C-alpha cells in the first residue's frame, strides 16, 4: 500500500469515527465540544514543532514555523483550559 493511500484510509476512517462519537454528544455540551475540539485541532503544533526545530532548514522556514508554534499553542493551552473551566461548571452540582 502506498503512503498516500494509507494516509487517505486513515483520514476517511477517522471521519467516520468522528461522526459516530460526536452524534452522541448532547446539545447541553455543544459549546465545550467546540472549544475542546478546537484544542484538538491545535495538533498542528506537531508539524510546527518539527519544522521550527529543523536545524538544516532555511531561517525563513523556521521563523514561519515558530510563529505557527505560537498560534497552535494558544489553541492547545487556551482550548483545553477554557473547556475544563466550562465542564467544571456542569459537573459541580448545586448542593
Amino acid at each position: 500500500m502506498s503512503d498516500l493511500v494509507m494516509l487517505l484510509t486513515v483520514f476517511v476512517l477517522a471521519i467516520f469515527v468522528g461522526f459516530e462519537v460526536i452524534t452522541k454528544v448532547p446539545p447541553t455540551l455543544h459549546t465545550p465540544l467546540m472549544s475542546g475540539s478546537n484544542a484538538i485541532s491545535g495538533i498542528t503544533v506537531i508539524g510546527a514543532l518539527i519544522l521550527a526545530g529543523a536545524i538544516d532548514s532555511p531561517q525563513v522556514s523556521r521563523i514561519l514555523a515558530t510563529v505557527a508554534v505560537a498560534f497552535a499553542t494558544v489553541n492547545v493551552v487556551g482550548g483545553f483550559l477554557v473547556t475544563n473551566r466550562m465542564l467544571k461548571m456542569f459537573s459541580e452540582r448545586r448542593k
Partner: protein
Amino acid sequence: MLSQQVVNLVYLVAAVLFILDLKWMAHPRTAVRGNRAGALGMALAVAVTLLSGRHDWSLILIGVAVGAVIGAVAAMRVKMTAMPELVGLFNGFGGAASVLVAGSAVIAAVASATADTGLQMRIATVASAFIGSVTFFGSYVAFGKLAEFLAVKWKLHPWQRVVKYGFSLVVAVGCLGYAAAVPGAWPAWLVALCGLAISGILLVRKDRFPGMDAIKMVAALAALAVAVLVVLDPGDEPLFWLLVAVAGILGVILTLSIGGADMPVVIALLNSYSGLAAAATGFVIDNTVLIIAGSLVGASGIILTTIMCKAMNRSLVNVLFGTMGPGADTPADDEIYRTVKATTADEIAMILDGAQRVVIVPGYGMAVAQAQHAVRDLATALEGRGTNVEYAIHPVAGRMPGHMNVLLAEADVPYEALVEMDDINPTMAQVDVAIVVGANDVVNPVARTDPKSAIAGMPIIDVDKARTVVVIKRSLSPGFAGIPNPLFASDNALMFFADGKKAILDLLAAVKEL
C-alpha cells in the same frame, strides 16, 4: 533519540486519547475526564515529537512560551457570555497555524534537494494554505462581528478601534512590505493588491455592499487558478502567498455578509474548517496524528453545522449565499401589536403564585443583559414555593451551539433542569407560565402558521400553547429575522418591558413579597 516506530506508536496512543476525549463528552459526568484525556494525548504527542530527531530548541521555546501565556490568560479571563468570540478567535489561530506550517514546509522542501515535493505534498500544501487562510480571515470577521466592531456604523470603544484599524494596517503593511522585499515577481505585487483589498473591505461599515457577489466570484475563480499554478510549480514562493492572500479575500467576503442570526452556523462551520486545515497539514508532512485529530474536528464541526441549519430550517447554501429578510406581505407592526398588554412585576408575581409548572425560555437577550444569575435566583425562589421550574433551550438560542447551557451552568443551574425543544414542546399545554427572557424569533408562532414568512418551517418552542406567556423584552423591536412576532399580542401573552436583568430582579423581589 527515539526511533520513528516508537514515535508513531505514541502518536497512535494520542489519537486514541483524542477519540476518548470526544466519546466522554457524551455526558456531563464524564466530560471533565474526557477533556483531560485529550490534553494528555496532546502532551504525549508534543513530548515524543521533541524527543525524536535533532532539534534546535531555541525558537521552539519562544513560540511555546508566547502561545501558552496568551492561551492561558485568554482561557482564564474570558467571560462566559463572550465564549462565541473566544471560540471564533481560536478557530482563526488554528487556521493561521496551518497556513504557516504549509508555507514553512514548502520553503524547507524547496531548499533541500533531497526532500520530496511529490504530487501529494503539492496538493496537500495548496489545500492547507487555502482552507487555513479562509479559516483565519473568516474567523477574524466572525470575531469582529460578534464583538461588534466590524461592519457596524456606531462609534467604537478605544480597544475596538485599536483591533480594527490595527489589523487592517498590519495586513496592508505586511503585504506591501512583502512585495517590496521580492522585487520583480508579479505574484508578489498581486499579494500587495490583495492585502490592500482585504484591509479596505474590513473597514467598510456595513455587512453588504454593491459588488460583493462579484468579488466573491472573482476571488473564488482566482483562488482556483492560483491553486493550479502552485501545484504545477511549488517552488514559486510568491505564488504560494498569492494563494493565501486570495483565499483571505474569499474568507472575509463569505463571512462578512452573514447575518447575526446565522452566527452559530458560521462558528460551527469555521470550527470544521480549522480541523480540515489541520488534516491537510498532516498530508503535507506525512503525519497520521494530524490527519486523525484534524478529521475528528472536521466531523464535529460538520455535525454541529448541520444541527444548527436544521434548527433554523435552512440549508447551508442558503446560510452562506442567501439572505434572510422580511417576507413579501407582512402586515404592518401597528396592526399586529394593537392588542399588546403590558404588565408589571407585581402582576406577574400574582400569576406565578398559583403556578404549578413554570418554563423559562432564555435567548441571546439574557446573555447581553448578563441576567443568568438573576434568572437562577428567581427559579430557586419559585422552587422554594413548590413550583416546578424548567428551562426550555432552543438549539440556536444565543450565538453558538450550546451557548445558553453554558451560561446557565455558570449560574449553577443543574443540567437536568435544561430541557431540549423537542422534549418540552409536547407538554407545553400543561405549562402554567412560560417566561421568555430575551428570545424572539425562536418563539415566533408565525414559523408554524405562515408558510410565506421568512422563518416558515423553523422549529420553535411552542410557548404560545402555555396558559400564560410572560415576555421580558426592552421593546417590541424585531429579532434577527426582522419580522414582527404576533405572540406578543396574543390573548395569553403579557409583555414586561424592561432590561432583562432588572426585570428579573424586580420580579424576584415581587415573588418574595407574596
